[in-house]
């Protein structure tokens, strides 16, 4: 039995991408395998680790808990969409480097997405708010302290650049 295919059009990092997908294809597998946007990582595949976090219509969600067919007509931002057009790192990404907010890098795309969503909604978060925002992302290297510092540094730098 061949599986039915469903046509979808999804705006991914500002570009409309059309495809036909089987219903069971997860959004993260479509982004990685079909669009080759491998910045979004696959960790647990059942919604626990947060490595696959993306922005769906501006809100952070787990891309392993959605089927690609459900994203039809919606807007997706992956970690690749956080960089400037010339590929240079965003302030948030650079702050992760500066504060050693990553080691092995597996969780980093998910943490960047969670932090990006936080800073867009709340440009001056408290430490508790940062911890709440990244509470759904597992990291086995950093112990989270440097991640929190990186997000706070990014908030300071972004506030400075707005002044």
């Amino acid at each position: 039995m061949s599986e039915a295919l469903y046509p979808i059009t999804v705006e991914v990092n500002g570009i409309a991408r059309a495809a036909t997908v089987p219903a069971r294809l997860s959004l993260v597998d479509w982004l990685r395998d079909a669009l080759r946007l491998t910045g979004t990582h696959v960790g647990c595949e059942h919604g626990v680790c947060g490595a696959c976090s993306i922005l769906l219509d501006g809100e952070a969600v787990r891309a392993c808990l959605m089927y690609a067919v459900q994203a039809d007509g919606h807007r997706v931002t992956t970690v690749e969409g956080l960089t400037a057009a010339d590929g240079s790192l965003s302030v948030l990404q650079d702050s992760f480097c500066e504060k050693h907010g990553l080691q092995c890098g597996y969780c980093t795309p998910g943490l960047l997405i969670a932090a990006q969503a936080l800073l867009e909604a709340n440009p001056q978060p408290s430490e508790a708010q940062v911890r709440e925002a990244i509470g759904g992302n597992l990291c086995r290297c950093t112990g989270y302290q440097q991640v929190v510092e990186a997000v706070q540094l990014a908030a300071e730098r972004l506030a400075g650049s707005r002044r």
Partner: protein
Amino acid sequence: MKAPPFEYARAASVDEACALLRAHGDDAKLLAGGQSLVPMMAMRLLRPAWLVDINEIAALKSVAVEKDGVRTGACARQVTLERDAALGARVPLLHQALAWVGHVQTRNRGTVGGSLAHADPCAELPLVAQVLEARLQLRADKGARSLSAGEFFLGPMTTALAPEECLEAVHWPAWPEPRVGSAFTEIATRHGDFAMVSAAAQIALDDEGRCLRAALGLGGVGMTPLAFPALTARLVGQRPSETDFAELARAAAAQCEPGDDLHASAAYRRHLAQVLAARVLRSAKQQAERLQ
């Protein structure tokens, strides 16, 4: 960890969702936020032949703050409720519980109705529904019916929903008394993980501090979230003391039937049930006392 094959239909209206459910019966599942269903399919615990996606039905996303409570569409996202200050003021217990539901990413996608229809006995929203005696509105092709939370939850991951029925909306009652306090707490390995035990309480006091009405519920210690109306009725007319709360908590914990697993023994869960029951009763009363 990939879902088995299935066919997908995006319903544009509740009528269409109901028609699809009638056509496919037991072979179809409704897909709301997917925060429980999708992992279960990835683990192949479920193999529906059809998924009927109700995420694009605008009518299921409404949130209305009404005089006697809050009415939420079944597909309203948890984050929508969390951000609604008027909802938090009208039904504070619902707002308090939402802070314990999963993580930011899962609340952004997870829905009220999905959580209730999934009916995990340790989940937060089913517990609040049970404590507040929320009313659930069910729709099918052949008609609509309304059930209380107590009638809706039948067992672990088991509800009164028939295969062809769609949960359409939930009414979360607000208590009309002027001094109402509420509290929610739980113990989990990490914040946002599944609770070992959760507890919720709501208490209404009169001007002299006498109890007009009280409700207590415990999650994770039975087949469904549990409420204890016979026990809390004993508080009515009293100025409840620490001793009253301790006795009530002991009696409630004695009625629980917690399970044993890797994370916590039955004895530990029963202990938590007693401690957390007393804690939420005390907090709810203190909150009510601060209101004039």
